[in-house]
């Protein structure tokens, strides 16, 4: 079964996205040898079933905290087919370095600009197509708390997996 890892810093809506994708069934357990809890669940996207892993919050691929170490270990040991890098659209500039790190590491990234509703309230508009061109990866805008953009995300994941074959 292919794996999807949800990656990003704390408080960007990772766990809400996780439950949007997996429904309600999740297994929470300590990552082996640590006290950090990791949730895993299954998601059916198109006609394929994926294992979805909600990684602990990480600001960088160079870990400082135990959570960050676990997040990176998941990338290294679980070899996800897709890494969903979620960031807070209000703080694009501060969170984009992590996207670049993931790309440097050769990870199959889909970039998710989450909390776009609050960004718009704050008067911040992001041109996702422009980012997609600059980074050559899929980029899309979502609001995970309301589920906005979820269907588009599933569609993009399907396309992405087809490209892998």
């Amino acid at each position, binding site marked *: 079964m292919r794996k999807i890892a949800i990656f990003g*810093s*704390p*408080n960007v809506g990772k766990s*809400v996205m996780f*439950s949007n994708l997996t429904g*309600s069934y999740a297994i*929470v357990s300590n990552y082996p040898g640590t*006290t950090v*809890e990791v949730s895993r669940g299954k998601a059916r996207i198109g006609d394929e079933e994926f294992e979805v892993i909600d990684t602990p919050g990480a600001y*960088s*691929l*160079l*870990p400082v*905290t*135990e959570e960050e*170490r676990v997040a990176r270990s998941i*990338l*290294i*040991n679980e*070899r996800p087919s897709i890494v969903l890098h979620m960031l*807070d659209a209000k703080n*694009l*500039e501060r969170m*984009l*370095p992590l*996207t*670049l*790190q993931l*790309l*440097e*590491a*050769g*990870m*199959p*990234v889909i970039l998710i600009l989450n909390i776009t509703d*609050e960004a*718009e*309230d*704050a*008067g*911040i*508009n*992001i*041109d*996702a197509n*422009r*980012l997609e061109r*600059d*980074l*050559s*990866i899929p980029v899309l805008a979502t609001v995970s*708390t309301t589920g906005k953009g979820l269907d588009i995300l599933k569609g993009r994941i399907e396309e*992405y997996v087809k*490209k*892998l074959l």
Partner: protein
Amino acid sequence: MLRNFYRKIGYDDPLELSLSRLESLLLSDYTLSKRSISLLLLQEDTEILGLVKEREKERFSEITTIIEETKAHYSQPLLLIISQRRQEEASRIARSAISLKEKHRRSIKGYLSKIMMNPLTGGPILLAVLYYGLYKFVGTFGAGVLVDFLEEKVFGNFINPFMINIITRYIHFELLQDLLVGEYGIITLGVRYAVAIILPIVATFFFAFAIVEDTGYLPRLAMLVDRMFKRIGLSGRAVIPLVLGFGCDTMATMVTRTLPTKRERIIATLLLALAIPCSAQMGVILGLLGDKPIGLIVWLGVIIAVFMFIGYLAAKIMPGEMPTFYMEIPPLRLPKLSNILRKTWFRLRWYFLEILPIFLIASFIIWLGQITGVFNFLVKLLGFPVRWIGLPNEAAVAFLFGFFRRDYGAAGLYDLKKAGLLSGNQLVIACVTLTLFLPCIAQLMINVKERGIRMGIAMSIFILFFSFGTGYILNILLTLFSLHL
């Protein structure tokens, strides 16, 4: 692996040269690209260094040489140089994609957010949240109305008689009958306690907590108390488990897992066990002292003083550095009912699965204590310190039961008060001592589970002596100043 065609970030020449030299020495597969691994090596990531040392044995000395040479070439740490370069690139890309407009709304949210974090206005807001959320909703409605209904009506009139009937009909072995449906039976006490008392309290608490969480108030509260918490060796982050403690200390102790350092986890666990009364206990204590506002103030003052003093002491004694605390402050939002219900449900399920076995074990232990006579012996033993802090003998039973069910202990005091056996002073002393006294058996088990057997037992012994010590000192002080509460 899908190739992505993003043009790599270019670093300056010496760094690029080192990177390509390092890449050529890495022969094994690390999942992360060789470039990424090389960058992590240059930033001296211990875990990656160890991994590479293990896999590129004979090439590792050359790798360390390259790292040292590269470091020597720059006056600043490589970590800084690499992240600055990366941030430049990120900023360039981000700025070309962002366009700013006039803000939609003059934000009332911003104003609210400010007054929540300002120490002058934040305090009263916190008190209001605690009063309505905790005291009114959890204490009065959850621990009062709902518990009464479930305990008296559902269990008292229906489930317990029904189970007792079935068990006594089919099992004729009296010991076993007692174990299942006796006064402290697994069904009559263990299951009932978990379902009829803990469940409604914790459910209402989780519900209130989810609302507070969903609005974004918690991080602001964390900021508000961060400075004060630093004094007691904790950071603002500890607000979450400590606030949860007012709902149920056992659950809050589980949540200390979220604290970053071992030192913080130990201090928080100790403070929870000692000075934070859970809602079950608080309900009864408010009932006991409700008609004595002065007594209530004395009780509150002593508990707060103990909290600060022990926290301060623990922070002084325990080695370790000051916790750093940095938290994103998300904007305030209107809570969403579906979110709140979902969060409440998930937590409730998680909590219940963790807690139910503990209650079952506890009722088994009580049953064992009853039939072996250990209980009577313990009551006699507890009689000494109880008399020593100026309380009547009968209070010992309340204290022992308080260990198995904190609110039972307080309820036992209630009976003594009604019987006119306790003066105002004795009542306040008893309430203070009982609040500080050993956590309930479920919490003791969780303490042992989370902190290990040695730490769990050591804490309990300390708490035992400290709670009676405080009662003793309070008794002396009240007598000294001949105060009659």
